[in-house]
């Protein structure tokens, strides 16, 4: 081996951390120029930059309305509270997704009802959702994933049939398409994030897109009526405004990085990069490179993560553990069998991506993984000895 793994005392592959977030940013001069406008008018808490951002995002997504929020969590909670209208029921959601979703349901006074996902889209399985809906169900919360939208048609049909609102968390699918149409218009509303690690960097922030006029009015009154603190401040709105302008470039760089991973890792036995589905029809943002550890790989997923983190690749598992196995899974609620979720939750890790990951870095990481595939058994032995 060309030097020991850092975990065994060797020099780390990366001299500075390589995270999994996008961390895109405009030139600081541009940012300060825009921020100065807000500063000069002494309006930093709310103002015209956020309002203008809403119009631009609505145009980007091809929808009638956009509302910006302090973050996506508040947006989702407020949407669910709106549809709950004071009722305490349940919200249908996939179990293979971001760990915050059940919390948002609870803040909305609802019990999260976890369902299985489909193996290809990783999205909420319409059959599993249908089986879980009961007379206390208040809403369906589905997720559009980075590599594929959910089966939006089937889920919306189910929602229509059962007369339920359906919300889409499209946080990792910003800019992606479904059936060739850019996401944003589907269901009753979609929710996106403007957190710094996401495709669109607004420091912290979130937004809702919808074509539903009544929902837009109600949500706007809720946000601005003095009962909640949920607005997006101008400092964040300015950042997001400028990053929105750079989005096509960011997506192009992401695609380049993804393709580099794909070619570099193609020949490494035991590793499989998750494909973006139907790339001939659909567009994606390529903000993640998800690696599947298969049976041939000599190490466990956890061991692999441990080794890579020591090298400076600040990576983690992908949606593991599944939501129904987390401490906040509500006690006393029967959980159905979720075989696809359980299977998927064990398979993937996130590779470092984003602005801090160069193509050379990707090559270096791939080479490291290649070496690991050859010497993995020795490494595994040594790791397990270390543990004992």
């Amino acid at each position, binding site marked *: 081996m060309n030097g020991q793994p850092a975990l065994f005392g060797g020099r780390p592959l990366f001299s500075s951390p390589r995270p999994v977030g996008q961390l895109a940013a405009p030139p600081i001069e541009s940012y300060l120029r825009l921020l*100065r406008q807000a500063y000069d008018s002494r309006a*930093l808490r709310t103002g015209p930059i956020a309002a203008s951002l809403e119009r631009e995002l609505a145009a980007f997504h091809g929808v009638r309305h956009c509302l910006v929020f302090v973050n996506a969590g508040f947006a989702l909670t407020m949407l669910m509270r709106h549809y709950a209208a004071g009722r305490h029921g349940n919200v249908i959601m996939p179990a293979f997704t971001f760990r*915050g979703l059940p919390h948002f349901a*609870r803040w909305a006074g609802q019990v999260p009802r976890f369902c299985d996902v489909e193996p290809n889209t990783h999205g909420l399985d319409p059959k599993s959702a249908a089986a879980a809906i009961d007379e206390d169900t208040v809403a369906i919360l589905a997720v559009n994933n980075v590599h594929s939208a959910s089966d939006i048609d089937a889920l919306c049909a189910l929602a229509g049939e059962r007369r339920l609102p359906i919300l889409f968390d499209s946080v990792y699918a910003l800019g992606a398409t479904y059936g060739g149409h850019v996401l944003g218009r589907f269901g009753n509303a979609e929710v996106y994030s403007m957190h*710094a690690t996401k495709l669109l960097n607004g*420091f912290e922030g979130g937004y809702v897109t919808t074509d539903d006029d009544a929902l837009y009015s109600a949500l706007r009154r809720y946000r601005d009526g003095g009962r909640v603190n949920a607005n997006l401040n101008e400092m964040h709105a300015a950042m997001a405004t400028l990053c929105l302008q750079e989005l096509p470039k960011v997506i192009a760089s992401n695609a380049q990085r993804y393709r580099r991973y794909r070619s570099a890792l193609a020949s490494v036995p035991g590793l499989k990069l998750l494909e973006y589905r139907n790339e001939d029809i659909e567009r994606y943002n390529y903000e993640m490179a998800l690696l599947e550890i298969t049976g041939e790989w000599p190490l466990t997923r956890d061991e692999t993560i441990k080794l890579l983190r020591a090298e400076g690749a600040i990576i983690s598992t992908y949606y593991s553990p599944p939501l129904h196995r987390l401490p906040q899974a509500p006690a006393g609620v029967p959980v159905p069998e979720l075989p696809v979720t359980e299977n998927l939750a064990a398979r993937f890790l996130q590779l470092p991506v984003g602005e801090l990951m160069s193509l050379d870095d990707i090559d270096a990481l791939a080479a490291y993984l290649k070496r690991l595939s050859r010497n993995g058994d020795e490494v595994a032995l040594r790791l397990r000895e270390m543990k004992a």
Partner: protein
Amino acid sequence: MNLPSWPQIEEAFAGIFDRRYFANNGPLVQELDATLSQDIDGLQAICVANEMAAALAAVTACEMTGEVLVPAYASPLLLESLAWCGVRPVLCDVSPDTFVLNPSIVRRKVGSNTGGVIGCHVFGVPGDPLALEALGRELGLPIVFDARDALGSRFSGRSIGSFGKASFFSFAEDTLMNAAEGGCVLTPDIEVAKKLRTIRNFHPGETFAPVSLRLNGKMSEAQAALALLSWNDRFARINRCRENYFIYRDRLSRLRGVELVSGRGAAELSYARVVVRIEPREAHATPDEIRNALAASGVKCGRPLDDSQFSASDFPAAARLRATTLELPQGASLAPEDVTNVCDAFERAVTRPLY
């Protein structure tokens, strides 16, 4: 408005862009938490996205369940936060002298389902937190304080933030501490602090204690940058606000039926807000009449409890406070001459015969 100089802002953001650390408990947020702690009696400080996140986190960290006693004039924001926490607010009238919750009121309303009490430092004036704190200990109930505008104030030699289990504050641009938007929870309790640090985000690495629920309540580096600049500059602003306050007190104390809301003797104010109580019979004018007269002179005033929705007949003391208060202009950028002009207009409004 409490804003730092533009060069200071440029420098702060240059640092943020340089480090490429925009959010997720970055170095500035950590520095802000540490600085506030150091400067406020060594209390634990947990900064968050906004006042509502602070309220949600505080109530959750203190594990309030069931019913929570609050003053009748609790803000709509506090009431909505309690609804999100799944607890039922029980409105209580306040003391007719101090206009805050006191032990006798709380004792009358405490029931088997009471899970906590939230005192309010209304208008930023410390509302006898000692008595409520002692009562909380006696009854085994967590006491949290809505200290929205009370950052920097003290009571009986202790900082607001040190009383009860936790207090939450606002860093919105209309407060002493301007982070554009932001909030903070202060607590003397290390275990509560661990819960707060866990509650405000979802990162497995930022998990310090078992909690019932978590939220995205993170403050960004941009907010922390502004807050740090604002905090480090506070003495100049507090001094200016104090100066203004003394002018108001001096001039308005000469008027019958007009009194500045300033708490009892043990309260040390931050002077962030100026609120007066008007006794219409003695002042020969109602708060609304005075407000209109001031508006005619170009002075903008507010009725500070206008957005509270409790019924006057059920809560007479709180109703009296709502009916008799008027908020006057205040802030570091308000010059002494401007304050004098407001006082002149105020004087004319109450001494000028109306009929």
